[in-house]
């Protein structure tokens, strides 16, 4: 994926703007948040013995939640990453007033929100002071050439330049102020970044920590479900392949041998022909079993790795395959090798069965920590990943390995299947 990279100077300018705005706006918001929340909280705790305290506390928690939501919206540009909102505990539908008031109070995140509202302003105030100082120093210093001459300068005043032992002239004053301004200006991006990150990291820990864990868990759950589903699909297919293939052939073989035994007595010539046929059946059964076991766990994949296994696969394909595998791919983890192999195997099976393609291309590229596997054909298109299609099982399998599967197959073709898998 090609990202358009703006030139570094523009990036620094933009980040200074983002960080400064974050800090400058953050201070008044935090102040309002603190005042509102602490007032409600104190009032709520104070009146808790009478039951009036409960709704007031709930109001405090909800107020803190509003300010937490505002901060979560403001975080991403500073942290350059998403700030997910945790799932708040909600009262089950139809529950009474008290239950509704209690459930936010029983939510751990509510108290983290409250902590954020009560203590967040401290860091934000410090950051605000530094950022305002630096901007003032930088802007004031470098513009001193304009305003310095208008400052009244009584003869008994001792400016910094005099204290430093420099001559008491306008040029010296302007020179010194400009130099100080330049130092502020040069360090401005660094200082602003630092004082934006300090409160931002504090907020992130309090406001999105739980959500990040929740997201990771649901991501893992999704992967586990995909793995279970992929396994069930694979087993069902294996059963069907055995049933439709070798099992049928063996029954036919038994039938033919039974016939041959019957024929031996009265028509030895026919018996010979039947036995010849039966021999043919055993050969085909063996071929089928070989193909089947290769489909379950191709030995060459375990022995020689992905590149060799794909070369073998491409060699057996009915449709001519142009195979490009990155030269120094080396060995990957078994699950990634397996998944990549099955993506290609399944895609090629589909190409052979449905696409009516004249040729297809297989590309395996490693870009950073991603392994990209692409299969393109020039067939009629119309492939689907809907349930019940072979590609649905494949999508599950890829997801189980922590990757993604994309399919583009307009009617009329071409069809492109692209899997991205994580590899370290």
């Amino acid at each position: 994926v090609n990202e358009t990279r703006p030139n570094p100077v523009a990036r620094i300018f933009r980040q200074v703007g983002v960080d400064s705005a974050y800090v400058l706006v953050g201070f008044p918001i935090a102040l309002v948040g603190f005042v509102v929340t602490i007032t409600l909280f104190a009032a709520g705790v104070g009146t808790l013995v009478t039951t009036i305290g409960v709704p007031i506390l709930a109001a405090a928690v909800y107020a803190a939640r509003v300010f937490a939501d505002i901060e979560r919206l403001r975080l991403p540009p500073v942290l350059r990453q998403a700030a997910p909102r945790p799932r708040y505990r909600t009262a089950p539908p139809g529950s009474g007033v008290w239950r509704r008031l209690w459930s936010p109070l029983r939510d751990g995140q509510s108290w983290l929100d409250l902590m954020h509202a009560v203590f967040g302003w401290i860091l934000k105030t410090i950051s605000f002071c530094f950022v305002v100082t630096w901007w003032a120093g930088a802007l004031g210093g470098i513009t001193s050439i304009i305003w310095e001459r208008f400052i009244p300068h009584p003869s008994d005043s001792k400016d910094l330049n005099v204290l430093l032992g420099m001559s008491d002239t306008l040029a010296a004053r302007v020179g010194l102020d400009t130099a100080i301004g330049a130092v502020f200006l040069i360090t401005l991006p660094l200082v602003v970044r630092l004082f934006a990150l300090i409160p931002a990291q504090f907020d992130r820990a309090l406001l999105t920590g739980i959500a990040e864990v929740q997201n990771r868990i649901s991501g893992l759950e999704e992967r586990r479900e995909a793995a279970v589903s992929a396994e069930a699909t694979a087993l069902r297919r294996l059963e069907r392949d055995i049933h439709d293939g070798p099992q049928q052939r063996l029954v036919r073989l038994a039938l033919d041998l039974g016939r041959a035994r019957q024929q031996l007595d009265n028509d030895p010539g026919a018996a010979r022909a039947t036995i010849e046929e039966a021999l043919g059946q055993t050969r085909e059964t063996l071929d089928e079993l070989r193909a089947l076991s290769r489909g379950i766990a191709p030995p060459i994949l375990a022995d020689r790795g992905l590149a060799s296994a794909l070369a073998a696969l491409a060699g057996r394909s009915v449709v001519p395959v142009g195979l490009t595998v990155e030269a120094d791919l080396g060995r990957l983890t078994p699950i990634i090798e397996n998944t990549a192999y099955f993506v290609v195997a399944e895609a090629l099976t589909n190409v052979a069965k449905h696409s009516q393609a004249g040729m297809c291309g297989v590309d395996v590229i490693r870009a950073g920590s991603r392994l990209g596997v692409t299969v393109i054909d020039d067939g009629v298109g119309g492939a689907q990943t809907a349930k019940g299609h072979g590609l649905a099982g494949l999508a599950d399998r890829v997801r189980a390995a922590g990757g993604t599967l994309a399919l583009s197959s307009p009617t009329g073709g071409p069809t492109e299947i692209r899997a991205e898998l994580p590899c370290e």
Partner: protein
Amino acid sequence: VVADDAVLLREGLIRLLEENDHQVVAAVGDGPSLVDAIGTHRPDVSIVDVRMPPSHTDEGLRASVQARRLVPGTPILVLSQYVEVSYADDLLADRRGAVGYLLKDRVAEIADFLETLARVAGGGTVLDPEVVAQLVVRRGRAPLDALTQREREVLGLMAEGTSNTAIARRLVVTEGAVEKHVKNIFTKLDLPPDEEQNRRVLAVLTYLRG
């Protein structure tokens, strides 16, 4: 009529039948065409595979039940890679007899297979020994413990739909001895004695199914 979606097996069966002086009037590969073929040809017997398109599940079984509603009592021999008691229950539900349910492997014993086919065509009920074994296991041991080893063998063969004569031949005893065993079994299990083969099988099966 022969119904099986695997062409390989269908051809094999057709050849086997034709070599043994039977005539195959229709060979089909899915459920709906089986029902059509039975309706059109009214065959002496149909051989049906359980798993067929379009559903690839128990299509053959459901088509058989449907065909028997259309042509009551049309004889059907169901073949399957697996035998399951619940499938057998579906077939026996209409209590008209003329049904068989065998593992596919049994076709290799050609003489037995043809005999079974003739029995189903003649209105008999034939179940695979596997089904009977499952039924016996499911029924539990207690009442069967009262039977002698020999009587249990006879019970199994009865459930499979074997006639007294065939039981006598299989166990290498006289027919009189078999009759005595059968009478003992019916007395011990408290079943109504019945000489007609189809009803006898059903009685035994009803007992086994508990």
